């Protein structure tokens, strides 16, 4: 703030000075002078150095309680204050406040950023030193210590005395349990009768060893007298599944909650206070004792062969239909297992007596009747198909479970169901549940997934998509290159079509190439007449193309008449004359040797090269 006055105040002072000189009035000058004095005072007042401090409003607390971390910035306002990251502490920003004061003419501004710190476990924590950039200065706070202690359960004496505003109890209904058994623990929260209200109940720690916590459900509240005080009891049931044998422990569970107690010393009439006391909020922590329990393995003795791990108390009902079928027709066997236990994990036991049937994967549905999901009915639907017409009955169905209350195995058996199975030729595979079962107007939700596919189908290999394969991408340049090639070819053809001289030049070039081959053949065969006739024709073609004249009009005379004026070099003209003369002489002395004819070819090639360099 002081710095801003220094920077922006001086130019403004000069501006006002110019107004003073313009004579706008004495009053204005006084205002400006006063402002200058104020500005001078602000400039000369020594700026307080910026500082940064961190503090906790409490350095020891019980797990479940929160503490406030305050970061105070004096002499500036920080741009960004990140929340410290301390494992085991949940730190959330709670707000920002600013305090401006004038002490002995010096302005003091303090910005405080508050964080709510909630421990997630007991122990000693250190909130590390933080470094903040404040007005270009890097300031560092001091590290802070925080001790979080585990809440302890209220003793029996404290409970009986009624001194505890609230406490919590954890109990297990059975002292002996079995591995794999699902049971329910009872947690009770006691609130003394002077607690006006409560809320924000949060479990801060639920340690279990050898259990898996399941669903929980609150029960009906009731009142209970303990000592000479009355408590409101909030029961909570928690589903537990035992996962191992041996000594297991449950708890201590800890929780925090906010309760409202009558305000103390609020004055006024005591009679009215009992009706209009707004109360005061208080955060409390609750803890239970640890429960140790022995978990036993299921007895190996007398275990039925088709026991598949079901523990609880159950009853069973089995139905099958239709019972009058042909071979391969589906029969739906509906098995309902009702009772108490972990219904979700129940599976159908293997029925070894059903060897004359094709079995399809069963579908299942669980309907629970209690909020913990431990009581209810699980319904299996098993589709089976008789494999031959000799099948007369559906063999008895049995289901075994272990009853933890009696400590023994129980077997439920459903008697055999009579079947009438007829023989047929081809039998279609049964449809279990498919999306086609839905009606056209009211699509029903499928009850299970569609069955597996019988055929593997076309195999592919795990690999990157086509679009990322370099080979595939390179292949895509082929049509572009092909198109470009066609375009070039087309332009070349077009150019030739529109340029007769060029076309003739190319035609003559091709004629000369072919003619040279003929000349070599005639030279080898020593056919001098044909050789010189061809040579004369080629000379005509080449000179005609160069001079843009018909080939038939070319004679030796054009050398003097047209080539010489074009600036053809004399050696070229001489060589041309020689070639024409050779052609003429051949009419009179036709027999020449191959070597001589070959030398004429070389001479002709040289003349053609030089002629092509001439511009017509």
């Amino acid at each position, binding site marked *: 703030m002081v710095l801003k006055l220094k920077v922006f105040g001086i130019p403004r002072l000069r501006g006002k000075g110019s107004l003073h000189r313009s004579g706008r009035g004495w009053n204005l000058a006084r205002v400006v002078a006063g402002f200058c004095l104020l500005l001078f005072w602000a400039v000369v007042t020594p700026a307080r150095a910026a500082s940064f401090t961190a503090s906790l409003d409490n350095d020891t607390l019980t797990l479940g309680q929160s503490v406030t971390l305050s970061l105070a910035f004096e002499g500036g306002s920080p741009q960004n204050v990140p929340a410290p990251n301390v494992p085991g502490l949940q730190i959330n920003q709670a707000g920002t406040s600013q305090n401006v004061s004038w002490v002995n003419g010096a302005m003091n501004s303090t910005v405080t950023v508050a964080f709510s710190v909630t421990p997630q476990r007991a122990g000693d924590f250190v909130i590390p030193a933080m470094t903040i950039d404040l007005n270009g200065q890097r300031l560092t706070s001091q590290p802070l210590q925080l001790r979080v202690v585990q809440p302890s359960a209220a003793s029996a004496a404290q409970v009986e005395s009624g001194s505890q505003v609230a406490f919590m109890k954890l109990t297990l209904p059975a002292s002996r349990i079995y591995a794999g058994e699902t049971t329910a623990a009872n947690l009770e929260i006691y609130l003394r009768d002077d607690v006006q209200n409560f809320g924000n109940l949060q479990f801060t720690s639920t340690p279990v060893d050898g259990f898996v916590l399941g669903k929980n459900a609150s029960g009906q509240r009731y009142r209970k007298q303990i000592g000479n005080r009355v408590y409101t009891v909030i029961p909570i049931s928690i589903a537990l599944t035992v996962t191992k044998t041996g000594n297991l422990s449950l708890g201590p569970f800890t929780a925090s909650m906010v309760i409202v107690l009558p305000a103390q010393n609020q004055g006024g009439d005591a009679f009215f206070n009992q009706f209009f006391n707004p109360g005061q909020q208080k955060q409390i922590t609750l803890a239970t004792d640890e429960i140790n329990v022995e978990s036993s393995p299921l007895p190996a003795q007398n275990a039925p062969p088709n026991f598949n791990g079901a523990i609880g108390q159950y009853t069973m009902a089995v139905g099958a239909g239709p019972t009058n079928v042909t071979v391969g027709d589906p029969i739906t066997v509906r098995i309902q297992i009702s009772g108490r236990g972990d219904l979700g994990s129940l599976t159908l036991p293997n029925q070894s007596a059903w060897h004359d049937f094709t079995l399809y994967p069963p579908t299942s549905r669980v309907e629970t009747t209690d909020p913990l999901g431990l009581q209810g009915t699980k319904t299996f639907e098993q589709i089976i198909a008789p494999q031959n017409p000799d099948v007369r009955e559906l063999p008895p169905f049995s289901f075994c479970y272990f009853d933890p209350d009696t400590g023994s195995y129980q077997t439920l058996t459903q008697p055999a169901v009579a079947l009438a199975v007829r023989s047929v030729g081809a039998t279609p595979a049964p449809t279990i549940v498919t999306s086609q079962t839905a009606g056209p107007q009211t699509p029903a939700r499928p009850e299970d997934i569609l069955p*597996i596919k019988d055929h593997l189908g076309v195999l592919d*290999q795990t690999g990157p998509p086509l679009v990322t394969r370099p080979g595939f991408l390179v292949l895509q340049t082929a049509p572009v290159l092909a198109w470009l090639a*066609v375009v070039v070819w087309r332009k070349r053809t077009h150019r030739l079509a529109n340029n007769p001289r060029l076309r003739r030049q190319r035609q003559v070039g091709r004629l000369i190439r072919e003619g040279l081959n003929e000349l070599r053949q005639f030279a080898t065969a020593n056919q001098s007449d044909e050789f010189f006739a061809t040579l004369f024709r080629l000379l005509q073609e080449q000179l005609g193309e160069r001079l843009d004249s018909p080939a038939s009009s070319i004679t030796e005379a054009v050398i003097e008449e047209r080539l010489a004026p074009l600036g053809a070099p004399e050696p070229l003209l001489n060589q041309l004359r020689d070639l024409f003369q050779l052609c003429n002489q051949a009419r009179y002395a036709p027999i020449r040797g191959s070597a001589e004819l070959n030398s004429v070819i070389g001479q002709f090639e040289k003349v053609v090269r030089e002629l092509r360099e001439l511009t017509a």
Partner: protein
Amino acid sequence: MKNNFPYLACGRRRKKSLNHSQFKPRYLGSYWILSLLSALVFTGKVFAADLPADFNAANKLYAEGKFAAAAAAYEKILQTGAVSPALWFNYGNAEFKLGRPGRAIAAYRQAELLAPRDDEVRANLDFVRNQVTGPTLHESRWQDWLGTLSLNEWTMLAAVTFWLTFMLLALRQIQPAWSPRLRGLTLGVFVLTILSCGGLGVAATIHFSKPVAVVIEAEATARSGPFAEAQDAFKAQNGAELPVLDHRDNWFQVADGSGRIGWLPARQVEVLPGA
């Protein structure tokens, strides 16, 4: 060994039947061109011959209700590098029967990537998705529409229209007289090329830059930072599909549908390309 890929067999037979004296440049050239094209487009589809037998054995285990053994058998086939929609589909069924909806969803999504219009895959995927509670990813309608073709199908569509466009352009150069008649067709194919390339671009962007993490554990706790001691951000149920925003070491940063962001350890999720 049963061979499903005759073009490879053709190449092998030809190589075997020609000795050195019979080698002629044109044979050599066509053989190598065929091999090169095969290698460029279809990289090595050679699998063990008994995969169908293994698949049937796994199906039998499934039919007998031995879902864990069936899942292991399907997984073993997948480990060979061979994939097919049916294989992923059946694997997803086995995982679902084992009470692992997350792994089932991941398998169905893999099947959907290969066969996006398979009604059975979509039905089972929808069925398992309906069992999942808590935050999960909901695809928009246009993403659904894009998903009617797999990325490779989009690629092939774009490639075919691209080739067709340039072939028509080349034909118009070769036969200028046909040019007026081919103009409308060329324009139509060009527009198709632009559209299919656009579709491919969007599909590829989603595939490569918008991966999805499927939670495969009973309940995964997303944390505010990529370390085990970080604060809880939110919880995701088994089978939740969450968009992946970032990853660091063995942690994936994911978002739930309500805008909350958290980090999940890699062992709790299966990360799949965006569909």
